[in-house]
């Protein structure tokens, strides 16, 4: 099965006053049709940037300096804005973090839905309107027929995000990039929204790239997971493998820092130090200053992704274990 999305050695640079910052450094992973891939990492690790690069909405002066992005086998990273436009919405849908600011306060929800539908699908406005009502109903909004003429400020936070999901799925894309879709919502609704997203995507056969810093959400929802650190991929693999037998020391630290009702621990694991700023990324492996198992090689040469056990990780460590 061809991957619906494939990133090969994608690098994103930001030329600034004081030199060029490398925000993404040779990121590679793929997403198969219909699967849910979580992209996880701390703030500033480059998760959202990856999403933006895929949709082609990198804020200038940021640009893709290296690598390729393939959508269903077709290369899209070099396309102009006008060439990307028919792809956005129709083949890739996007969901952003804050549902309040994602919707234009001056237009009704119905207008914004119908507008999206009519742009991509051959329908009349009234047909689009009916379809919009269906979409709202499928996202669990009660009294959709009336609420379609309501303005965004008349919905609560959770409802708004359902509208956003409806908008993202309106043109039936095959891939959804969801950037922190539940972070701005109450904890009590987060699970509902994630469930909804998962269900609708499964029904439509759409793959999901779920960007979040919340490992719990990933554990519940994703099929595979990509762990990012300082603009690079640290580890990737099946969710179960990454969670239960991680190879990269960073991932180990991440998993250990999640409180669990089931395990009894004296203390949560804490990774010393903080993720380096973009202009101060150490040579070799970016994690080396904080790594409890650092070796001299880590400070010199940057490790590439290699199969280690059940997952693939960018680490020198396992190489020793293999020989041991």
């Amino acid at each position, binding site marked *: 099965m061809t991957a619906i999305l494939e990133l090969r050695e994608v690098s994103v640079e930001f030329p600034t006053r004081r030199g060029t910052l490398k925000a993404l450094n040779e990121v590679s992973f793929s997403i198969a049709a219909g699967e849910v891939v979580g992209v996880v990492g701390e703030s500033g690790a480059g998760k959202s940037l990856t999403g933006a690069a895929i949709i082609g909405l990198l804020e200038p002066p940021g640009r893709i300096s290296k690598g390729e992005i393939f959508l269903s086998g077709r290369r899209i990273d070099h396309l102009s804005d006008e060439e990307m436009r028919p792809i956005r919405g129709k083949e890739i849908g996007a969901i952003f973090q804050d549902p309040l600011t994602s919707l234009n306060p*001056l237009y009704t929800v119905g207008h914004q839905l119908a507008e999206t539908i009519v742009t991509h699908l051959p329908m009349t406005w009234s047909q689009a309107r009916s379809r919009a009502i269906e979409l709202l109903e499928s996202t669990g909004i009660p009294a959709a027929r009336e609420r379609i003429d309501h*303005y965004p400020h008349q919905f609560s936070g959770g409802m708004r995000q359902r509208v956003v999901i409806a908008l993202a799925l309106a043109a039936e894309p095959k891939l959804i990039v969801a950037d922190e879709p539940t972070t701005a919502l109450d904890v009590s609704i987060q699970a509902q929204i994630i469930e909804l997203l998962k269900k609708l995507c499964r029904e439509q056969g759409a793959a999901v790239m779920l960007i979040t810093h919340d490992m719990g959400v990933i554990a519940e929802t994703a099929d595979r997971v990509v762990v990012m650190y300082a603009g690079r991929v640290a580890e990737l693999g099946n969710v179960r493998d990454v969670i239960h037998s991680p190879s990269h020391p960073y991932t180990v630290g991440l998993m250990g820092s999640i409180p669990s009702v089931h395990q009894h621990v004296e203390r949560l694991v804490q990774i010393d130090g903080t993720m380096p700023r973009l202009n101060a990324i150490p040579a070799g492996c970016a994690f080396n200053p904080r790594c409890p198992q650092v070796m001299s090689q880590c400070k010199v040469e940057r490790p590439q992704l290699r199969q280690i056990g059940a997952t693939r990780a960018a680490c020198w460590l396992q190489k020793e274990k293999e020989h041991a």
Partner: protein
Amino acid sequence: MFVFILRRLIQAVGVMLAVALLAFILFQYVGDPVTIMLGQDATPAERDLLRTQLGLNEPVFVQFYHFIVNAVQGDFGLSLRQGQKVSVLIREKLPATLELSVAAALIALVVGLPLGVYTALRRNGRLSQALLAFSLLGVSLPTFLIGILLILVFSVYLGWLPSYGRGDTIRIGWWSTGLLTASGWQHLVLPAVTLSLFQVALVLRLVRSEMLEVLRTDYIKFARARGLTRRAIHFGHALKNTLVPVITIMGLQLGGIIAFAIVTETVFQWPGMGLLFIQAVQFADIPVMAAYLCLISFIFVLINLSVDLLYFAVDPRLRVGLGKSGGSH
């Protein structure tokens, strides 16, 4: 919503009362009204008679009350300089100023708005940079200087347009209009352009900066992520959201236009209220100054109220309570 209108109306009345008080103080205490009206050589008997007639012996509140009653009817006494009734003078000059102001406002809107949108959408183009430079010049040039320059070029050197007065006017009832004669239009061009230039530059920069703000918002980003056409994003979404804050500022600018008409009318000897006011200031003609103050305040208050109402009509977020709001999860 009605509560809102009521509150604003009360506020407006409050402001008007405060202004009236100011005008009243001017009237009563700046200079001696009796001397003003009778001159220096009046006998004490004549003065006393006038004092009683004017009600100057009554308590201040009563006087203020009379002042307000008169003011509402437009009676501000006699002009010191001209001897005529102030209300008559103002009525004569009002149409000239209004026609000039409206013409300038229209120019500002029709020229400034599209240019502002253009410079926001094509930020880095050469034409945009040129327009921006021009707009910076526009806000750096004082209105009177623009008038003088225009007169120099178009009247003195080229001789195309007149530089003085209003041309031929036609009376319709108590309104005298210059819009129905060719010479009226000719005379209107230079002053209207002069008055509007500052506003054009202002509107251009305002619309541009608002639109750039809007183009940075999340909902525009989301609209792009949904693959909406450029036209839908720029004109359907961005423009509409830009216009909402622009409306308020435009409304306030209308007040500025009427005020700056003072300068323009002086440069072009345009026989409007502004010229009247300046002559009153130079001459310390209190009644005219007070009347102008009240009239202008009234116009401003009216404009502000209208802008508030307009906001209501345009921004759905303000219409809380009219539709269903909130909702369960």
